[in-house]
């Protein structure tokens, strides 16, 4: 039999996986030394939180095919639990180290994952999605009723410096919180990764692909979905706990639809089909949210356009695009794509420049304190109350798009060529 070579290959792949995780951890450690400013550290901390949140969301959408519009419920509740616990520690009611506070959040997420999961996972598909939408709205709108827990309009806040810690840190300074978040991110992400490699993970995939058949190999699909859902709530709760530690405040909107929507976007843009997809999405979108929003009023528009564009042309997300290049790479064909990709660079830049100009000028015109003040656009001073810049921008956009259309035809041809010479791609994973 092929036992020996099999286990050899298994060892090799195990080793490769271990390396990937070590590199991941190393990156987390090193980053704050490269980007030292306060704003980048808080941005990277947020990235960590949302990586976890998005990964936990992908346990539903990607692994088990459950489209949820209410995942922020578990994230938010985890955060509220954590803050209440921190307050209790500060009040001397009980004692629990800050480093382990995310577990309190996890417990909260798990608890409500069990409660709401037990009703929502009884259904699948669109019905499930609608139930989660309903539960999300329900919890959000109940925040005004249960003010002891949610704190009403002003939310719940706490001081994360509790003096009960395992390590000799106060967790006042942002950098210490960054490392706390970083450690949890690596640890919890690893756990979630391992989860995909368990019987539960596989059965979740099976239930996603064909719930009917799953029943006939002995699995209660409701149960499988439920367990997965509750665990996903647990991890979302951890993320929420970290979020709470970072911001020291939670409000009703953290359990709400917007928060739920944003994790869906992150996960989807990153790519649901691959484990690391949501990580890409979380990093990218957090970056857009924090950095881009400083540059441009219109960042939400860019973000919406990006999303729509992805759904239309890359429904498997960024990770899907990356994975699609594995096969030509393995076949040594990747270099043949470079020329056509290079050909696309200029048109893409043109189109982007045109689009950005139109949008930026539009926002300036409609929102600025004084629209006749010139704005900086690509190192030029532009007065948007004149017609000329608009004409130029629209022409650039149109030319870019037209060229892009042509180039994309070439790219498709090239891909077809390559596909003919490579073997049929094996199933992903």
């Amino acid at each position, binding site marked *: 039999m092929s036992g020996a070579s099999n286990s050899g290959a298994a060892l090799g792949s195990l080793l490769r996986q271990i390396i990937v995780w070590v590199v991941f951890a190393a990156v987390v450690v090193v980053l704050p030394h490269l980007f030292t*400013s*306060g*704003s980048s550290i*808080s941005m990277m901390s947020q990235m960590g939180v949302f990586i976890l949140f998005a990964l936990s969301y992908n346990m539903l959408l990607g692994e088990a095919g459950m489209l949820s519009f209410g995942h922020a419920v578990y994230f938010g509740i985890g955060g509220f639990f954590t803050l209440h616990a921190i307050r209790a520690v500060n009040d001397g009611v009980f004692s629990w180290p800050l480093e382990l506070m995310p577990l309190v959040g996890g417990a909260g997420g798990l608890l409500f994952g069990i409660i709401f999961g037990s009703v929502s996972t009884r259904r699948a598909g669109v019905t499930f999605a609608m139930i989660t939408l309903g539960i999300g709205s329900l919890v959000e709108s109940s925040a*005004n009723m249960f003010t002891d827990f949610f704190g*009403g*309009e*002003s*939310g719940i*806040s706490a*001081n994360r410096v509790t003096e009960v810690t395992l390590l000799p840190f106060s967790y*006042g*300074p942002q950098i210490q919180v960054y490392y706390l978040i970083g450690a949890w991110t690596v640890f919890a992400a690893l756990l979630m990764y391992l989860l995909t490699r368990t019987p539960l993970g596989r059965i979740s995939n099976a239930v996603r692909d064909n719930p009917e058949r799953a029943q006939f190999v002995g699995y209660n699909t409701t149960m499988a979905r439920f367990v997965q859902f509750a665990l996903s709530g647990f991890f979302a709760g951890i993320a929420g706990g970290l979020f709470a530690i970072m*911001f*020291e*405040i*939670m*409000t009703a*909107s*953290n359990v709400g639809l917007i928060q739920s929507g944003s994790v869906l976007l992150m996960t989807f843009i990153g790519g649901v089909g691959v484990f690391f997809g949501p990580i890409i999405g979380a990093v990218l979108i957090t970056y857009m949210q*924090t950095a881009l929003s*400083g540059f441009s009023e219109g960042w939400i528009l860019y973000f919406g356009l990006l999303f729509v564009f992805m759904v239309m042309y890359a429904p498997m997300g960024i990770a899907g695009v990356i994975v699609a290049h594995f096969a030509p790479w393995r076949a040594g064909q990747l270099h043949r794509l470079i020329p056509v990709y290079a050909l696309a660079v200029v048109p893409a830049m043109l189109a982007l420049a045109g689009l950005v100009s139109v949008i930026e000028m539009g926002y300036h015109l409609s929102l600025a*304190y004084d629209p006749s003040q010139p704005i900086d656009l690509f190192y030029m001073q532009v007065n948007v109350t004149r017609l000329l810049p608009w004409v130029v921008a629209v022409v650039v956009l149109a030319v870019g798009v037209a060229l892009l259309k042509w180039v994309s035809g070439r790219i498709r041809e090239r891909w077809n060529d390559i596909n003919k010479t490579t073997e049929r791609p094996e199933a992903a994973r």
Partner: protein
Amino acid sequence: EDTIKIGYIDPLSGAFANVGDAGLKHFQYLAEKMNAAGGVLGKKIEIVPFDNKTNAQESLQILREVADQHIHYITQGNGSSVAGALVSGVEKHNQRNPDNRIVFLNYAAVDPALTNDKCSFWHFRFDANSEMKMKAITDYMADQKDIKKVFLINQDYSHGQYISKAGKEMLKEKRPDIKIVGDVLHPIGKVKDFSPYISQIKSSGADAVITGNWGNDLSLLVKAGSQAGLDVDWYSYYAGGLGTPTALGKGAIGHVKMITEWQENLAVRYKAPELQSMLEEFENRYSGIEFYYLRVKTEMDMLKKAMEKAGSTDPLKVAYAMEGLSVDTPFGKATMRGDDHQLLQTLFMSTFTDDYLKYDSEGTGIGWKMDARIPADETATPTSCEMKRPSRS
């Protein structure tokens, strides 16, 4: 650094975008005027707007951004819940980052707690707080003998909740004969059609309504009332601007009162021509928005004076300089009380009427007329604040 940046943290989108936008324009306009007059300590003032969507958590996120950009002064007003979060956020931030401190200038959030048990050295309030205003309103109501039944309708958050509580208490004390026939809290910024609430007021038989509502929550409320032909007297905090006068319509003549630090016709009455020319210039510039916040001017003037007094823009020094500082307004002196950082200024009770002096509101042909003047020292209420001050170095 040759500019003094002030972070403006208020809603620029969402249900209260119009309120935040109007506030922002006040600040930008006044900063422009100040810069034209030479700025402060030779530096220019820049207003940096941030949209907090009236959300406490969002505001704290912004606070972090503000700190990253080394902005040392922030101002906010829309929503006491947001202000509450900011006060404790600023407090914690300044404790942890003594080299990058932030001063919070509150121009409109009126929850009394902010200058009582939640008070902070870093927070200064330039509007009279809700207790002061409610005291003035109920004092006035105490004299209106024909009020028999009162209905309270307010937004469901700290500000509205306080009015509901304090309104009932003070009325009971000053006019035990008045019956409270209704006390409703509605979700803030979410109600699109107030008709159900209006029917409630109607069927309660109230002859006066007290409301601390603001923004759309106020204009939609009074609009629904006027459409249904509701015939009551309104005792309000904020009926003077931002669409509410338009929504009130002719039926409201003589029926709507408000308590504020000023209204346009006072500039005529108290002969303040520079104020008049300022408000006219402002209104020409931004058609549709009226000069509503005199206290924004007071705030900017006081900040300038404090910086000049401290000879520095260092937040700690400026904050100390501001304690007990006074500036002159056309209606009298305004003083920043050192104990709790509450500004004491003259307040006015006014009525919406066609018998106004010069300026009507929003082109309605109806304007505000003064009923009563409450001098600064009479507005003061005691405070429970135990201010913790950082060391002066």
